[in-house]
């Protein structure tokens, strides 16, 4: 892969984008998991697909927009979906989780209609669903870079507010934290990161990259900072090994990235088991 990396621009794009999302997806994923919002990631990734489909349709039916970038359309839909979920959550106060299936199924439904109208069941679509080592353009790579910087900056700035909001919402309100505002900002970031990650891991597996590394980190971390650190580490390992093996096996990287993440999860579980067994044996 290394000599290929130097030779082919598409590989550089995929590798750099992969490293970036291996960082931000688990970073936001930590907050998503501890706030029990994992399903929102799924809903938003599916609405991203709707955006992609809409873009494919427009490209086909409207002449003159050939270099339309479907990723931007996906991002727009993802962000709109986030706004919509928040609206629905306040409408169905006692059934907040209902917002998720509404958006998820609505998104897929609309997406399927768009794709069919565009006769778009082709390899392009396949690479959006399961990721691709070849699909990331240079300009998309720059977009992901900007998003990564924004996410890191905002998480850094609002770290303590995000922490209290996730740990104890009531106390956050009593501390004067503007919860709604920060939550909204957070969901927007999630929408952007999902649309960015989609190009490498694929729509169907984006949420896995956000949650699986966190699931592994939770098994062994002793503090919140450790959880973040380990999640990012596991995320990066999954992306790098996943991309490398996908390139050599000529298969979509979504599968290999997620399987690596699953393997890490199994290893951390085994590690914990062995550790406790050992501790019991020595009588601690």
């Amino acid at each position, binding site marked *: 892969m290394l000599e290929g990396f130097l030779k082919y621009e598409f590989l550089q794009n995929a590798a750099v984008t992969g490293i970036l999302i291996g960082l931000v997806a688990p970073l936001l994923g930590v907050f998503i998991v501890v706030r029990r919002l994992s399903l929102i990631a799924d809903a938003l990734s599916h609405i991203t697909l709707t955006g992609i489909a809409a873009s494919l349709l427009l490209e086909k039916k409207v002449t003159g927009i050939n270099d339309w970038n479907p990723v931007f359309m996906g991002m727009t839909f993802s962000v709109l979906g986030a706004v919509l979920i928040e609206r629905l959550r306040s409408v169905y106060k006692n059934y907040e989780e209902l917002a998720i299936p509404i958006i998820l199924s609505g998104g897929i439904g609309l997406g399927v209609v768009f794709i069919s109208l565009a006769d778009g069941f082709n390899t392009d679509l396949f690479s959006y669903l399961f990721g691709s080592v070849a699909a990331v353009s240079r300009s998309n790579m720059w977009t992901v870079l900007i998003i990564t910087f924004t996410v890191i900056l905002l998480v850094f700035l609002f770290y303590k507010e995000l922490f209290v909001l996730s*740990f*104890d919402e*009531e*106390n956050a309100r009593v501390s*004067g934290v503007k919860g709604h505002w920060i939550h909204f900002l957070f969901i927007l970031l999630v929408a952007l990161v999902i649309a960015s990650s989609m190009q490498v891991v694929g729509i169907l597996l984006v949420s896995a990259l956000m949650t699986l590394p966190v699931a592994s980190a939770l098994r062994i971390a002793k*503090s919140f900072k450790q*959880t973040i650190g380990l999640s990012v580490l596991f995320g990066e390992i999954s992306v790098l090994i996943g991309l490398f093996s996908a390139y050599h096996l000529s298969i979509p990287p979504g599968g290999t990235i997620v399987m690596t993440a699953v393997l890490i999860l199994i290893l951390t579980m085994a590690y914990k088991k062995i550790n406790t067994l050992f501790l019991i044996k020595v009588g601690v």
Partner: protein
Amino acid sequence: MNEQQVVEVKNVSFKYEKEWAVEQVDFSIDKGQFLGLVGPNGSGKTTLVNLILGLIKPNKGSIQLFNQPLKHFKDWREIGYVSQTSNSFNSGFPASVLEVVRSGLVSRLGMFRFLKREHTQKALEALKIVEMEEFAKSNIGELSGGQQQRVLIARSLVSAPSLLILDEPTVGIDEKHVTAFYELLARLNKNHGITLLMITHDIATITEHATHLVFMNRTIRFHGTPEEYNQYNGNEPNPIYGHMQQQLNHMEVMS
């Protein structure tokens, strides 16, 4: 306007659905008071505290904190709060005890300011007060219920609030630490001038330590000093809660 007033509750009523949970409650807490709020289960104590904290809005009446209408009150760092159930926090949360206590400084710092080493020092001091400093590095989820409660008390103390609101903070805490905790509260109140509002069912102990008592059962049934209460009660301290309830019923008949 009274400069001394930390909390002022004016004719406040609140209902969740149909029944009034808090009805025409009218009282105030002056700076430096240690007020014990007592009443049977379901009498509206927690509801009243949630109203004071602005977590819910009254249907009638108004509330002022530090002489400001609740709507305009911004200075949340002046207020520390320990809620009734320690399960109000996310129990699976992967945070260390130290991180949790440090998070009590969020209101004091405000936005765009960061937690630094000196704040860790403050958090460790707060943990020492509740004798939990040896657990600083432990995961909060791996502590016992009483230990978690002590950590949350430390979190409310770390920002050095001038009003501390505690909703049954000693539930699940062993006797030795309850005694130590009351001593700590008395010290905070006397030496540091911190105003305290504490909900409890332990009438005997609160009568010993508080400067003022409020008994409520939806409405306020008694508001006065422990001496006034004891006088009212025929100079008998009142250790048994059932007895208290009789007393409340008695008052109900009289009113």
